[in-house]
Structure formats: structure tokens, C-alpha cells
């Protein structure tokens, strides 16, 4: 396995506020990697550094290609789908238009992608004319995932997918992420508060604190780690 995404000593700031102090991490092709940590640790900013929605310094490579000078649209065009906090739903547009936007960088017909995505989210097909803002929170999160999937990304960046969702929906969501990973070979970098679920779905994880990586390893290693257990798993 080779690393699809590599971050080396990445720093990022919002104005004068330094958020990332030299993050290094790697995401293997075909794996699910979780980023854990307390609020304000820089988890979201790490994703934003990759997608180019925050000013950053350091080396960020996608399959060897540097991303650190590219803006968000250019990064998306290289095959990175970022589902941001708040899901990035175009609530004024219809479900179908949201999916079409997901495949914005693709040329030609997107019917094969739509057919595929409807096998994972069959209910989306019936609601394609519905205004996306009228979907429930859980449905919107599913739509965000579907939108990212029709992009056919090389890398999916998923930010707090469980936020505001009922536990049943969160489990369902992670099941689908796992399925997309296993059946479609989708590589995922996921930021998640719910460490238990995240480590269940992920092959590996990184723990951030105050803008630095304090711990990393396979999911089993992290689950077995005492500090992770105490701080994030709660047993």
C-alpha cells in the first residue's frame, strides 16, 4: 500500500490564531483513517488545509502531487471531495441538483454514478425533485455523502458526520461509509467526535491535541491505548 495523502509539518492559521503547529499524517490508498481529539484540537482545520479552504504552510501531497498552493476548486478537481461541517448542502436547490453539483468536475453523463449511488441510498431517487433544505438532518447527511460519492473522489474528507444525528442514523451512516470503502475502494479521512464509532469504521487513526499529533496507530492500537480509552472511549 502507498500513501494517497501525505501531510508533512502542516501549519495553518486563521488570521493571527495559529491552529495547526506542524501536523504530519498519511492516509493509505483504500483505507479509512479517523482523526480524533478534543474541541479546538485542529481536526476540522486539518481537513480544511487539505481542501484548501484555510491558509496553510508545509507539504500536502495527493498521490505525490503537491496541493499546498491550490485553492479549493482546484483541489476538488484533483479528486478530493470534502463534506464540510454543516454538510455543505445547497438547501435552496433540489436533491438532484445537489447530486449534479457533486459530479460538477466530471464530464459527460453521470447516470452510471447516479445509478450506483441510488443502490446505496434508494430513497434519494424518489426525492430528487425535493428542495434539499426540507430534508431532515440525517437525510441531509446522507445526501452529502451521496453528493461526495458521485464525485467519484480519490479521497473523501468527512467532517463530523455524526453531528446532530440520532445514534441509529450515525450507525447507519458509518455502515455506509464502511461499505463504500470495502466495495468501491473509497479512501476516507474522517474527523469524528464519536471515537468509538470512528475507530470501528477506520483502519487507522490520529489523535490531535492543540494542533499537534499526539498519538497515532492502527484502530486496534488506539482502542487499546489507555489515554484514548479514558479520554475518548469512556471506559
Amino acid at each position: 500500500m502507498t500513501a494517497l495523502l501525505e501531510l508533512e509539518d502542516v501549519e495553518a492559521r486563521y488570521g493571527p490564531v495559529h491552529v495547526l503547529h506542524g501536523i504530519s499524517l498519511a492516509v493509505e490508498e483504500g483505507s479509512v483513517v479517523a482523526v480524533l481529539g478534543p474541541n479546538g484540537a485542529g481536526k476540522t482545520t486539518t481537513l480544511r488545509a487539505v481542501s484548501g479552504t484555510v491558509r496553510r504552510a508545509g507539504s500536502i501531497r495527493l498521490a505525490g502531487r503537491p496541493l499546498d498552493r491550490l485553492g479549493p476548486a482546484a483541489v476538488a478537481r484533483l479528486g478530493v471531495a470534502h463534506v464540510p461541517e454543516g454538510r455543505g448542502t445547497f438547501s435552496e436547490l433540489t436533491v438532484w441538483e445537489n447530486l449534479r453539483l457533486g459530479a460538477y468536475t466530471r464530464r459527460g453523463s453521470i447516470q452510471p454514478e447516479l445509478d450506483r449511488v441510488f443502490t446505496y441510498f434508494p430513497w434519494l431517487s424518489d426525492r430528487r425533485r425535493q428542495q434539499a433544505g426540507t430534508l431532515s438532518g440525517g437525510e441531509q447527511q446522507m445526501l452529502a455523502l451521496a453528493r461526495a460519492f458521485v464525485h467519484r473522489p480519490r479521497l473523501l474528507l468527512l467532517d463530523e458526520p455524526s453531528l446532530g444525528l440520532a445514534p441509529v442514523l450515525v450507525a447507519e451512516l458509518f455502515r455506509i461509509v464502511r461499505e463504500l470503502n470495502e466495495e468501491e475502494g473509497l479512501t476516507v479521512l474522517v474527523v469524528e467526535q464519536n471515537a468509538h464509532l470512528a475507530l470501528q469504521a477506520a483502519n487507522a487513526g490520529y489523535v490531535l491535541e492543540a494542533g499537534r499529533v499526539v498519538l497515532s496507530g492502527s484502530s486496534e492500537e488506539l482502542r487499546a491505548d489507555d489515554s484514548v480509552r479514558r479520554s475518548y472511549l469512556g471506559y
Partner: protein
Amino acid sequence: MSAQTSAIAGLRARGWTIDSSAATVVLLLLAAAVFLLIGCLRSTNFAQLTVQGVALGAVYGSLALALVLVYRATHVINFAQGELAMLTTYIAWDLMEHGLSYWAAFAVTLAIAFALGTALEVTIIRPVQHRSVIATVIVTVGLFVLVDGVVNWIWGGDYKFMQSPFGNGSFTVGGVVISHLYVGMVAVVLASVVLVWALFRFTKLGLGMRAAALRPAAASLVGVRVDWMLAIGWGLAAVLGAVAGLMAEPSQIFLSPTLMQPILVYAFAAAVLGGLESPAGAVIGGVAIGVTLTLIVGYVPEISSELQLPFAFAVLLLILLIKPSGLFGRREVRRV
């Protein structure tokens, strides 16, 4: 109210999401249409004025739509929209002076307008856009003055004459004389509005432009080049403005640097009446303002054509006081 309730129920049954205020607006428009229809059937003078009002209103609607496109894309009112339309009309006049036929000049002018609108967004709007809305508005006011000066400098302030593309003929329907000019104005404006609407509604580029205007950050994450979309939006607005200018000119007989100044005020009123964010609202608002003004000037001797402009301002003020979101102001439906 029962008619309204059943109308809503009917639309809901067809899978439409509609709220009662939208239904009220639809009923209001229907009532206005019925009023106009009855008036037209009962009086040829009324019908004559209505036709004229619709034709002028189409021009106001076209410029109002240009304002709305810019507003949706960059959230500023482009005060120079009318002057840009006037400038492109002069360009068309100049092209015809150089021997181009009307429609060839028309096509070339629209292309120039697109390039001009796009270039202006990139060169003078983009640098200030992220500073503040006020800064951007001041830049558009500066652009107003600049365009005015440039046109006076190149072409002079004296009146130019431009051949009407639709001739001076007319046809009579039930005693009502309808000039070819009015039919042509409505047809050209309608065609350009429908084309722009189809572009937004059915093409990937149009979807990208809507996404960029609604949610720039989310749009860039799916790969939409937001800054290009905003520039194209300005280009399209300039094209619609150019159509408005070219269609306004023959109704004024002469081309002068003040061609679009009153029309800009009517377009403001139309855009605000339509809700500022609604393209359909801008066009309907334009026609409503055109017909209302023409009928009032025709029937109320106290309001002569000199008082049209203050009257339009009064309408603008009334809408802002009574219903600032206009007829079709965006109502977000959101569930959290």
C-alpha cells in the same frame, strides 16, 4: 380565502411546495391580469396604453433582471448597470455607422457587452468585493460617472438617431393599434430572458453559477470555480442590460447619454417589487411597473410624464416600507 386554500391544495397534490404568501402573490397577479383584460376589452384607449406599458415594462424588466443577476452573484446593486447599457447602445450605434446591419450590430454588441461585464468584474469589482458592500457600491457609482464621462468624451452629448429595427408599421387588433416596435421589443426581451433562464435552469454552467451565488464556500468544495462564475454573472447582466438599452432606444427616438437614467430607476423599482433575489420577480415587476406607469400617466392628468420618475420612486419607497421582501423575495425553507 377558500379559493386560495384549494389552490394551495391543488399545487401540493402535484408535489409543489408552496406557502400561503406565495399563493397570495399568485392570486394578486391573477387579479391584476383580470383587471387589465377587462379594461382592454372595454376601452381601446386602455388597451392601447396597456400594450405600450407591457413593451416599456419588458425593457425595465430586462434591466431589472440584470440588477438581480449581479445582486445574486455579488450581493451589491450595480448602480452603473444602466450606464453600461447606454454605453453598449452607443457601441451598437457606432457599429451601424460603420456599415453593419442592425442585427449584426446587435449580435456584436451583445458579445462586447459580455466581455465588458466580465472584464469589469475581474478588474474593478473583485479587488474590493471582499472589503465591504459599501466599497463595492461606491465602485459601481464611480463606474456610473466614468462611463458617463467616457461616452460624452467619445461620442459627444448631442442626440444620435438610430433606425428602429422593426420599422414604423403597425397592425390593428379589434380597433387597437399595435406598433411593430412594441411587439418586437417584447419578443426580443422575452427571448433573451428565456435564454438566460434556460441557461441557469438546464445547463451545468448555470447550476454552477447558482451554486456559486447561493453558497460560494460549498460550491468551491465541489469544484465550482466561484470567481469565474461571478465574472460570467456580470457578463450576462451586461448582455441583458445591452438588450434593454437597444430596445429602449427606439421608444425614445433619440440616443443620448441620459438614455438609461430614468429606466434605471424603473428597473430598481421593478427589481425591488420582484424581491431583488428573484429573476422571475424582476421581469414581472418590470412589466407591472411599465403598465402601471403608462396607465397612470394616461388616465391621471395631474401625473404628467414629468412626474413619472418621482412616482416610480414613491412606488419603490412604498414596497420597501410595506413588503421589503417584494413579491417573490427568497424564503428559505430549512429544517434543522
